[in-house]
């Protein structure tokens, strides 16, 4: 009996020892349990603009993005102007990421000698994991000052007449590493318009898409549809198509667009180029980023 029990005890020792050995060979990290993290969608676009329109992406926190946007003249200007290459319309801009979700910026354009400033805030950020969010939602508010000399300096002119505003929501989703789509309901308010036929408030709905074709190149397109009877005769909806090419610290955006201006009121309510008639600008945006505030590591 005694011997039997001792034997059983020994067997138990062996078994326990073995069982621990077995555990040891199992997946060790599973002992810690799975810690769930939130995986945010990043790089839905190569930069913070689709082409003229703001994209779902914000400038990273602590980063300054210097933008040189350039549009040549229109292709239908013909050989005399070298199909538009003799002309230029530019916007120089600075974008800065104040926090992860807040971006501010300023710019100065040739078109209407316009000075602009805006704030862009990401309200919802597409994510999976612990926090699941199917879309990104961003709000953009911009203010614009036309600084051209008064057309008629003799009459009483108000500074407020120079101002216009944009309020825009960006709702979109990065469907996978390749395709991102965004919708942009937009309100552009002009304090002063030229004729009674024009509305001060112009409503539009924009769409922006990007299709990645290689790791470093994407195709982009954007379209801003303006609801009818809000702008003067001859104003076209803005449509642009182009490619983003990323090389280390730069992003080059090359595109064709019928918009001459680049700030929102200029691009979306002052577009006169007609795609069907060769009213197309060749243009580019160059983005160069500088790290101002280094992240804590």
């Amino acid at each position, binding site marked *: *009996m*005694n011997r039997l*029990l*001792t034997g*059983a*005890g*020994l067997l*138990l*020792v062996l078994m*326990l*020892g073995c*069982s*621990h*050995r077995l*555990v*040891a*060979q199992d*997946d*060790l*990290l599973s*002992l*810690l349990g799975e*810690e769930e*993290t939130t*995986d945010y969608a*990043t*790089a839905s676009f190569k930069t913070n603009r689709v082409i003229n329109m703001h994209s779902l992406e914000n400038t*990273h*926190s*602590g*980063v300054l993005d210097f933008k040189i946007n350039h549009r040549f003249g229109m292709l239908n200007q013909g050989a005399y102007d070298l199909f538009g290459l003799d002309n230029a319309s530019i916007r120089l801009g600075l974008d800065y*990421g104040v926090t992860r979700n807040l971006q501010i910026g300023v710019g100065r354009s040739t078109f209407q000698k316009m000075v602009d400033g805006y704030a862009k805030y990401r309200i919802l950020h597409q994510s999976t994991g612990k926090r699941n969010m199917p879309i990104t939602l961003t709000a953009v508010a911009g203010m614009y000052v036309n600084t051209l000399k008064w057309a008629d300096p003799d009459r009483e002119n108000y500074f407020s007449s120079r101002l216009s505003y944009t309020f825009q929501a960006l709702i979109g989703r990065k469907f996978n*590493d390749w395709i991102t789509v965004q919708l942009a309901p937009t309100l552009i308010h002009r304090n002063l318009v030229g004729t009674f036929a024009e509305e001060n408030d112009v409503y539009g709905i924009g769409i922006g898409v990007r299709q990645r074709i290689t*790791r*470093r190149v994407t195709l982009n397109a954007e379209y801003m549809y303006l609801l009818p009877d809000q702008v003067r005769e001859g104003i076209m909806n803005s449509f642009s198509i182009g490619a983003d090419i*990323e*090389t*280390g*610290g730069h992003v080059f955006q090359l595109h064709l667009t019928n918009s001459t201006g680049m700030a929102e009121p200029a691009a979306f309510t002052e577009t006169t180029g007609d795609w069907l008639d060769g009213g197309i600008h060749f243009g580019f945006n160059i983005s160069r*980023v500088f*790290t101002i505030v*280094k*992240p*804590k*590591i």
Partner: protein
Amino acid sequence: MNKTFFLLLLAAAFAGQVNAQKYFTRDGTISFSASSPLEKIEATSRGATAVIDAASGAVEFAVLIKGFIFEKALMQEHFNENYLESTKYPKATFKGKIANIEEVKWDKDGSYPVKVKGMMTMHGVTKEIKGQGNIRVQGGRIIASSDLELPLSDYEISIPSVVADKISKTAKVRVEVALAELKR
């Protein structure tokens, strides 16, 4: 008779516990450098998980690729998007064994060099690697560290010719984790 039995049972339980002694961390530091004379390419993650089995010498590490923080945000974006493809391959893992684990005196202050060998998985590619490490025991604190060199081409991380001069062909990886006893 009964006494012997219970003593044995006790011994078994103890033996089991000693065998099962494991050390772990959830906030280990893993940093790497693929710098070239032209460009500083460095990143650090402070969220590496690791478990070391003191009995068998089995070792496991895991780190989220998106957890690596770079000085330049754009570089971090490209690292995730173009090089490591972190949406597709979110983690880098190491599963291996310390060959001379019995030389480590877990309860005695000292620095114990160890030899590690195992399988490294990164960017969807698994490779066998060997390396030297160190386990330092100091006043109840246990710090395991290692320096590794990983050729990027081993893990099918392609570098376009335009930036080939800016990125080192080999990533120097530094692992340093403070371990705590794993109680279950």
